[in-house]
């Protein structure tokens, strides 16, 4: 165990590095990191359900959307500050998650069927939001900008760095919560349910209750990410914060980094977003140099390739791959010694 001692120092160094980026990074770097950490945050929230509990939800956009729309509508119609509105959104999303979980687990909807339920749910919510004019329909909602010192009171800032610090703090927070879950009774029960639900049940673990709790926690925190996005962009539209395509994007980071691990979702998102940005940049370069049109799909193709290749060659993601190699190395050493 003495070997793993230096690790905390690496974490501290990394934290200091990321926290000081606003001091010397330009707006472009900050923009990319804000989105990367936003997906890291969303992926970590998803991981509580998808990773630890093994319920592959492809509909977590629903909860992000509920968070974004709740705080935005409360601000637009009642003038309530999003700082409070986001809690309201999180509570609603948490209840929605618990309800969806209750219905699914009560009726034993498992595996792929659970996945389909979540996809259907998020598409239903998206289509309804796109059709109700009061909810902004397909045009979306612009959030009224508040300039000056009053902005901070309504979750609005002029420069990018406060948003960066907020999303860093949120990511740190969800990391801490995931750590606590991993080491709590809840975490052990969730793992037992994931490995073998029937066996866990026969040992007296109330599986349904714990799965619902996982859905509620995940829904609560991921909704806060929705409010963050709304306040950062000051604009929301159904297809930006809900629906299957967005929900798949949330899962990309955890799949690449390693779902069910603490750092996997964050690592994966920090690779995935710059990769997407890089292919977009590459697309522009190719377009202007060769005067070519219609290369807009290139970054989505990259996402698709990552999915196919990761499943084939690193089914447990980057973190899982690393852990497996370390295990093999240790086995070899103990065999030699």
């Amino acid at each position, binding site marked *: 165990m003495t070997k793993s001692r230096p690790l905390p120092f690496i974490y501290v160094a990394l934290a200091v590095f990321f926290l000081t980026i606003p001091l010397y990074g330009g707006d472009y770097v900050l923009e990319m990191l804000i989105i990367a950490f936003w997906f890291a945050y969303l992926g970590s929230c998803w991981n509580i359900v998808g990773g630890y509990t093994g319920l*592959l939800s492809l509909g977590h956009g629903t909860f992000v959307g509920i968070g974004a729309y709740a705080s935005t509508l409360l601000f637009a119609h009642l003038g309530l500050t999003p700082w409070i509105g986001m809690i309201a959104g999180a509570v609603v999303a948490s209840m929605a998650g618990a309800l969806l979980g209750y*219905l*699914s687990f009560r*009726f*034993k*909807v498992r*595996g*792929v*069927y659970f*996945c*389909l*339920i979540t*996809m*259907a*749910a998020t*598409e*239903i919510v998206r*289509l*309804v939001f*796109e*059709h109700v004019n009061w909810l902004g329909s397909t045009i979306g909602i612009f959030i009224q900008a508040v300039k000056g010192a009053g902005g901070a009171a309504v979750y609005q800032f002029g420069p990018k760095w406060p948003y960066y610090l907020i999303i860093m703090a949120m990511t740190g927070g969800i990391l801490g919560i995931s750590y606590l879950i991993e080491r709590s009774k809840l975490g052990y029960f969730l793992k037992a349910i994931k490995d073998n639900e029937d066996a866990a049940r026969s040992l007296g673990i109330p599986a349904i209750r714990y799965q619902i709790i996982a859905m509620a926690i995940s829904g609560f925190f991921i909704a806060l990410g929705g409010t963050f996005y709304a306040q950062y962009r000051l604009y929301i539209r159904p297809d930006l914060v809900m629906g*299957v*395509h967005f929900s*798949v994007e949330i899962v990309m980071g955890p*799949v690449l980094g390693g779902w069910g691990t603490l750092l996997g979702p964050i690592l994966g998102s920090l690779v995935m977003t710059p990769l997407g940005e890089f292919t977009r940049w590459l697309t522009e370069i190719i377009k202007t140099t060769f005067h070519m*049109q*219609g*290369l*807009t*799909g*290139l970054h*989505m*193709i990259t*996402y*698709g*390739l*990552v*999915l*196919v290749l*990761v*499943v*084939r060659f690193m*089914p447990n993601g980057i973190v899982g791959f690393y852990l497996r190699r370390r295990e093999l190395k240790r086995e070899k050493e103990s065999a030699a010694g």
Partner: protein
Amino acid sequence: MLYVQALINGVLLGAIYGLMALGLSLIFGVLRIINFAHGTLMVVGMYSSYWLFTVLGADPYVSLLPAAAFLFLVGFVLQRYILNPIVDAPEEMSFLTTLGLGLIIQNLILMAFGPDVHTIDTAYKLSSLAVGELNIDVAKLLAFGTSLVVTGVFFSFLQWSETGRAIRAASDNREAARLMGIDTKKIYCIAFAIGAATTGAAGACFSTFIPTSQDVGMLFTLTSFVIVIAGGVGTYHGTLIGGFLIGIVEELGAVMLSGSMKQVVSFCLLMVILFFRPQGLFGREGD
């Protein structure tokens, strides 16, 4: 009268839906693979028709065979080189892979054809038959008839051909089929290829009366799942009936709510069926 009209449209749409979902049903039955690229494969069928129409001026019903043949090839290659290696992995793995494949194919189409929506203007596109107060679109009627013919070919193939028998054997019991000397890996490729080809044929039928667009793949994937699950997983007859059911439900939903809300109705139906009757309307208990 509006509802009778919707009912007729629903039946016409239902036959094509049934054909579209049969491919998914076959792939799921034989391979136990959740094919999230299914709707995208159908979109490939639509674009094949569109491309052959603009380049050669070929009517979608003339180009249906080459389009289906092309998808047969695509399906075979995908299964042989990408899906066969992970066929025994946990189910999440296969559906993440097909999800990725769907994204790749959809965006390759986007790069090749651009984001615009295309329509195929055939001679019969706007003509309709008047029966009393009812109007029946000729394009839909042709698509309905063609779908039934292709469905018939599909069933006869499964029922009477040697390969069809092998496919049914492999879907009943993989191990036993292998012990009987069936090359299951090859059967998987053929099954996936046939699934893709029938879906492509459904796409060719669709292209005569709905606009061809690259981003509808996921919606059609979900609709196909609704149909397969409604009919009961593992029963091809159930899938066919499921197609008619969802076609009628969607058309009635479009009349009662609004045209683009019709999917909401079928997705709600999916949730209700999964909660209360997971074996589907025509499946047996305990399947």
